[in-house]
């Protein structure tokens, strides 16, 4: 009945899932920055491969569990191809003559293709891997524990809580319109505005009603009474988390040194 799962947390028993959300966030930030600091296509490809390997290690199938993977891959290949085809700087490594059209592939074109396509694909896949293996609630609580004001933390948590409800409701409103004989035939801007208003108004009313209920529920449990709050969750950092952060720090230090030595 349903296609691939949405791009949301997928609980599994893997070391990547078990890693502390903040350790994973540090790795995501570290690898993202390093992607733009490295000056070698091989390094970009290495980071891409490491990211791709992360999926099976986390028990997630790129083919069946990740929505939009075909589109992403196509986009990555397209970005690579554009650079290869139209960037003619540097020495040529391949010349092909197709009738009147001469196609020249250069070292710089290939390198730039890997930078642009590889970076795009790696960044998106890394973000996917982070989202698919990280409990958003645990992430929000962890961020609050390290100083994020709890009001902002709960904006994230309540958004995560309400988003699926609103998704279901918007589908219900759409179906309710079909059952009243509405046809989604956008013939003119005026018709579009009418359809949009008829879709948005019930959703807005429903959302405001939920906000009322939620406000009563949260204030009735003293949300906002004090500038700080305590937490039931203990800050559980394991040896794996510390090891992950040490490896990341070592990697960052190595990159700085290599950069300084211009290697």
């Amino acid at each position, binding site marked *: 009945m*349903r296609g691939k799962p949405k791009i949301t947390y997928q609980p599994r028993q893997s070391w990547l899932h078990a890693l502390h959300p903040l350790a994973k966030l540090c790795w995501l930030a570290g690898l993202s920055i390093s992607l733009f600091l490295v000056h070698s296509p091989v390094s970009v490809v290495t980071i891409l491969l490491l990211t791709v390997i992360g999926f099976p290690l986390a028990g997630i199938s790129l083919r069946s569990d990740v929505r939009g993977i075909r589109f992403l891959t196509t986009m990555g290949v397209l970005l690579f191809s554009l650079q290869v085809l139209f960037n003619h700087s540097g020495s040529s490594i391949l010349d092909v003559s197709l009738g009147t059209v001469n196609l020249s592939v250069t070292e710089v074109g290939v390198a730039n293709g890997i930078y642009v396509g590889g970076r795009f694909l790696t960044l998106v896949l890394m973000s996917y891997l982070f989202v698919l293996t990280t409990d958003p609630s645990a992430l929000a609580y962890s961020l609050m524990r390290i100083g994020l004001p709890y009001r902002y933390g709960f904006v994230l948590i309540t958004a995560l809580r309400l988003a699926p409800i609103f998704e279901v*409701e918007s589908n219900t409103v759409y179906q309710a319109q079909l*059952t009243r004989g509405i046809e989604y035939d956008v013939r003119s801007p005026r018709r579009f505005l009418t359809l949009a208003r008829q879709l948005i108004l019930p959703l807005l009313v429903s959302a405001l009603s939920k906000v009322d209920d939620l406000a009563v529920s949260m204030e009735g449990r003293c949300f906002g009474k004090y500038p700080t709050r305590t937490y039931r969750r203990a800050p559980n950092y394991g040896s794996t988390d510390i090891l992950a952060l040490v490896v990341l720090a070592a990697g960052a230090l190595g990159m700085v040194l290599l950069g300084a030595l211009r290697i």
Partner: protein
Amino acid sequence: MIRIRGLSFRFQGSETETLSDINLDIRPGEFVVITGPSGCGKSTLALALGGYLFRQYAGDATGEVAVDGLDARESEIFDIAELVGLVQQNPEAQLCTLSVADEVAFGLENRRLPRQMIEERSEWALDIVGALHLVDRPLATLSGGEKQKVAIAAMMAAKPQVLIFDEPTSNLDPTATGEIFEVIQRIQEKAGITVIVIEHKLGYLRPFHPRVIRMEHGRVVSDGRHLTPYLPSRSNRAACHSANADSNNNRVARTEHLTVEYDKVPVLDDVSLDFHTGEFVTVMGNNGSGKTTLLRCLMGLLRPQAGDVEIFGQDIDKFPVSSLARDVGFIFQNPDHQLFAESVWEEAIFAPRNFGLLNEETRRRVLDLLERCRLDGYREAHPHRLSYGEKRRLNLASVLSYEPGLILLDEILIGQDMENAMLIMDLLKDLTTQGSTVVNVTHNPETAWLYSDRLLFLERGRIVVDAPTPEAFARLANLGLKDYLPNGSVEQLLAR
């Protein structure tokens, strides 16, 4: 414990008072039921007791409300929250975290209690509502009844002196409803706090021997120990006719080997049914048993993995929903999701206009429908300004306005008092005598008993009972499904 003197409240923009000169005294440990028709001010009174009415809603208030000596009109909600907990109707809308443990701990964390105490209080609260086994579960995986138990535990964790339940079971099936009332009973026995229940389902409350306060038009009209749930008897039943189930000539809809799965879990499992002209069919079953899915398949909103659906002899796969809608009316659960126009009148003629049926005859019919639904005085009003019960009746008028031959209703009676429920059911029954077919999903056995010709009972996607109503209820009684029997009829049905 609670002292109310001369309390009146008028919401901003409203011409009438929602609460009018309320005077009440509620003692510590008392069990109080507040009842009355939809829109009579029960929920507004609950908001007043928690202080929310005076802080979160714009309007004019007069009079006094004091909880354990604390002035609810002047005090901060946080201060009143130490005394009063409010469990709302919709469990989905009052939960604000993603897991059971976080939800129950939420109020305690906000009060800056130490972690050890949070753990102890959470465990105590989950235990008292019988939900300790749910502690590690994400909220999204819970049933409606389980969510409501967690919502109650989240309030109980703060150990309030007064706990208010505002129609806590209106979205729940009879089995879950029974469980919630058992929880309420346990809370009163173990915690000994003041319990105030706002409820239409009075039959469940008889064992508590409660004090019963009845409200009408914002006023307290009676206050005593007299609890009179509606007790239908066979003689009340509307004249039912048994549709000729063997005849194919008057068949309106048919499902054959209908199978629907969500994530490989069967929701409808090989369901074959016929619906006939003029039948009033009630569909019952626990939440998640496949009732709504069955209606959605009949409307073409959901395409099954296997099986066929025919409406008026046509395979529905060949028609878009917007085309099927001319012959099949569908009313969804939430009234707000199906109000699209700017006025009650425009809403009522919305569908006929879309179908190109708007003529003088239709206008006359709509006027008549609005009158029967007691909405003729609101023709120019915005639909979203109506009360819940009025919106529900407007939903019905909007669908009946174009005379569909098959009318599918998904829990239209949620949140309705018996008077409004009867008004809706009378209207539907009249339509069946004129040849329309009604398929009504409901958790209300009383109206099923009184109005339906035939009752279907679903369990885990399968039809376990499909029979004329009296016989079907007798079978439910024999199956031990007492929560699904009309009030006071268990012995009578078992004797059949």
